[in-house]
């Protein structure tokens, strides 16, 4: 029993340090606060993948009573530690991602056209902003065929992240 507790304390301590590191990199004024617009990036850089809706809820938890546009470290740390301990918002496995593309590619061509991808990403689900759409297209579109060969695309992204 005592061993388990000790182990958990060690895990929590490591999580704390990890969270602190990720937070500090965005703490431009070195005053233990970050701009609320960067919270999503920080949370995702720690390996979690909340949806936009889930992110909204998280932000509400860490914001001040009267939102200042800044999130304080003291509020962020406990919430984020819980998220990590409970292993919430796990990332999407590669094959789930592949299947998602295949669903959209109903005629099973092995690719999506540029227009199709734009339509799905900006009209369905939690729509992309124009900036997000352009960013994704710049890497995903094969300039010769003007289409997205999603299998290759996924493979490339996975390599890049490892």
């Amino acid at each position: 029993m005592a061993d388990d507790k000790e182990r958990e304390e060690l895990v929590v301590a490591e999580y704390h340090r990890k969270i602190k590191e990720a937070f500090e990199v965005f703490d431009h004024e070195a005053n233990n606060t970050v701009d609320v617009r960067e919270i999503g990036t920080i949370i995702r850089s720690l390996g979690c993948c909340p949806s936009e809706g889930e992110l909204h809820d998280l932000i509400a938890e860490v914001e001040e009573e009267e939102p200042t546009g800044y999130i304080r470290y003291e509020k962020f740390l406990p919430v984020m530690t819980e998220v990590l301990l409970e292993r919430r918002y796990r990332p999407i496995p590669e094959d789930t991602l592949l299947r998602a593309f295949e669903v959209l590619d109903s005629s099973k061509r092995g690719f999506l056209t540029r227009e199709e991808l734009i339509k799905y990403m900006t009209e369905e689900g939690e729509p992309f902003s124009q900036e997000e759409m352009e960013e994704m297209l710049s890497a995903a579109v094969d300039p010769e065929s003007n289409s997205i060969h999603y299998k290759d695309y996924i493979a490339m992204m996975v390599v890049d992240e490892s």
Partner: protein
Amino acid sequence: MGCGTSSSTKDRKSEKALKAALVIQNWYRGYSARLKARQRYALTIFQSIEYADEQGQLQLSNFFSFMLENYTQIHEKDPELVARLFGRTLQDSKDRQEYVSFVDVPDSYNGPRLQFPLTFTDIDLLVEAFKQQQILHAHYVLEVLFETKRVLKQMPNFTQVKTSPTKEITICGDLHGKLDDLFLIFYKNGLPSGSNSYIFNGDFVDRGKHSMEILMILFVSFLVYPNDLHLNRGNHEDFMMNLRYGFTKEILHKYKLHGKKILQILEDVYTWLPIGTIIDNEILVIHGGISESTDLNLLHRIERHKMKSVLMPPISIDEDQDTDLKKTKTGANVVPREGKTNESPSEQLPKHEWEQVVTVFSASNYYEEGSNRGAYIKLCCDMTPRFFQYQVTRATCLRPLYQRVNTMESSAIRILKERMLSRKTDLIRAFQLQDRSKSGKLSMGQWAFSMENTLGLNLPWRSLSPHLVTTDKNGNINYMSTFQDIHIQKPVKEAQSTLIETLYRYRSDLQIIFNVIDSDHSGLISMEEFRAMWKLFNSHYSIHIEDFQVDELAERMDLNKDGSIDFNEFLKAFYVVHKLEKLNKSDANLL
């Protein structure tokens, strides 16, 4: 309920599409965020190392003060040496004639030819020529430098400027030799003219590859529009900084025949650049900003041209060497030599109260392609300042984010590894201190702690560890793994690795010191000078290298056995080999 099966199939289909879209969006946002975080980490690495280097400069500066204090000892052994170091002054008009007239412009020269007195056509001429990668002939460089010095000498320490509703002023920050950024600013904001005023707030040179071209455009524009083009001195308008950060090298490379002459005169021109600009009596524009102890009244009065370098105490050695030294022995800080040093309080003007500080930086892609944007400010009377941002790019469209991040990241990791290598002995000692069982492994926490303490860099070590070390399946760090694919190329086989490491670590400081001794820029210093300097350096920096080891190394470097050392070659030989990468020629010249 209507068409039964078909509508529910449709619903199911669109529900599936919705879910699929959500999956892709979720994944993409996570991926994009991680890219941005990596970009931030890379930027943090660049900034931390740059900051640490600046602290290192303090040590060099202390070394020169230390040398000055111990002057009398050196004086006995080598009176020439310190005189050379601290007494670098030029006589004026006689040299001008000599220098410029002895430099001929051949008929075959295809570059821009300036016409004195300069007019706006010369500005256009230079801009066009530099866009085509042409180099301005040394003759014109020297003419411009002499003329600039002549005009600057007449100016006070602070230039006073007034704006009006019809006349805004544009303020630009550091350019650091990035000519493309200057062109971009001129493209967006127009060339300087009587109706388009500019302030360039220092650091025009060093680091980038076109410091000379920027300097020439700025000086020529200044000569054409002395009331509308204002230049402030930055810490890089300094011959010592140029030695370390690349401008000296650029000059000696572009001007193989006359580079040394140019360097000598440039040293002098720098000291005449104004300290700052004051706009409408309300706004102070000054490089490096201010602190609580900044006293404008004092700065107005000092003899700015006595400040040869930010790394050296201000002192001039005239014929009367000993008397001068006695006067300044107690303090080597900024002290006005003439003028009122001990005013009664009532005569002093009230201290300034500053409301707001703004920093402007104009070199985009400063650390690496994609690292940052640049900006300039447009000011006018009582109106709010307007900020304009930009970023130079070679391509017609931006590369995908992941490629830009990869470029930045590999560059940052590379310099971080080299930093680790230059402190290898200290790092290993720190690791072993914690590795009681001598297993070669440490926990993440232990490794991060050692790294931070030894290197003095506040970085996100846990996130960076995958790039720097290997981990075992229990999550423990193999702390020696960093050093397996990287080593310092030994210039001489027999040299001991601690010696090599020390020389590699201090190579920038040594380069400055040796270049300063070598005042005629011959590239050579004598063995005695080398030994004397090394002894001083050794004691001040508390380095534990035996004198005889350095002597041995020096003897080996004296390749033609004539008693002189080509120290640039000596130091160039120290570069880092990254085994897993192909070594680029340009990387070998990182010094």
